């Protein structure tokens, strides 16, 4: 590490094996454990929300609100035929949302360190590759090689078209990278910030004197950043779902 200090904000992103060896492909890591926790939470949330009561309770209202919001988003950006892509859009949305929220929970007080699954680029990167493959598959399935006209803009002189087409192609290829980078960096940066300022609280207390002022200020700041982190987590999940449905729209409707 370049900076020699006691604060080690990268430690929280380390993947440690719980059972087995980290080198073997069958290691059960803390990332896998927290994905299981997420699976249980999401399943519980949806089962509690799908009891189909005539007068919806709180759980059912929450689940119906989420599904309804995502459904209207998909329908407005793709059209009525886009409803068949809702399962992937909704799954990715609720997975990122729950991962971000669970990772921000202060369970560390009880000694359990929640691992933010989305703070690893492998997870969000694979999700964005799935989105990209859906776009490619749908595009080539529906339009065949005519799908390549996505890169050929309409209504401008040929010289400009020749200039725009490679730019469009490159921006298309960068999509899975930027799509996965966004939720990953948001969680990564936020957790580093929380870790650094959380350490400042402790160091201020240890210093004593005017250090107490630093501690109190840092505590207020960390509280604020934590609230912001919840907002950012929800926004990033929404952005992932929105961009996925917009990209699918490109493949379905070809501009």
């Amino acid at each position, binding site marked *: *590490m*370049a*900076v*020699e200090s006691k604060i080690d904000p*990268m430690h929280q992103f380390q993947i440690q094996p719980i059972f087995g060896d980290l080198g073997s492909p069958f290691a059960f890591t803390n990332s896998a454990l927290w994905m299981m926790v997420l699976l249980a939470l999401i399943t519980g949330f949806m089962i509690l929300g799908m009891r189909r009561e005539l007068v919806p309770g709180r759980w059912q209202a929450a689940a119906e609100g989420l599904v309804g919001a995502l459904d209207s*988003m998909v329908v*407005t*950006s793709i059209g009525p035929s886009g409803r068949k892509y809702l399962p992937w859009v909704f799954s990715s949305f609720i997975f990122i949302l729950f991962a971000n929220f669970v990772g921000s929970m202060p369970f560390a007080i009880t000694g359990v360190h929640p691992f933010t699954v989305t703070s690893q680029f492998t997870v969000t990167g694979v999700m964005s590759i799935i989105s990209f493959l859906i776009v490619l598959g749908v595009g080539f399935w529906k339009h065949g090689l005519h799908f390549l006209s996505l890169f050929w803009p309409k209504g401008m002189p040929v010289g400009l078209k020749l200039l725009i087409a490679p730019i469009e192609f490159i921006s298309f290829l960068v999509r899975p990278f*930027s799509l996965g*980078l*966004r939720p990953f*960096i*948001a969680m*990564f*940066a936020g957790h*580093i910030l929380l870790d650094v300022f959380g350490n400042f609280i402790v160091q201020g207390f240890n210093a004593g004197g005017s250090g107490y002022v630093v501690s109190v200020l840092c505590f207020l700041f960390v509280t604020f950043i934590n609230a912001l982190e919840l907002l950012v987590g929800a*926004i990033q999940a*929404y*952005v992932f779902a*929105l*961009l996925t449905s*917009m990209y699918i729209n490109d493949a379905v409707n070809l501009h």
Partner: protein
Amino acid sequence: MELASAQVIGAGLAAIGVGAAAAGVGMVFGNFLQGALRNPAAADGQFPRLIFGFAAAELLGLMAFAVAMIILYAR
């Protein structure tokens, strides 16, 4: 200059881009608010576009942050 100090200076310079992205995000939301106050009835329908503009502006700041982190922690 030592490598460690050069890394810290480079990371600090790379972090300037985050401020530029902050200006971009502020512009997105500020202009949305201006438009929304002129025509509040049409504002809700444009929410996905607002978030899309926010995401596009924010990504560049996140890239700057990623570059800063890579410079800071690279060996």
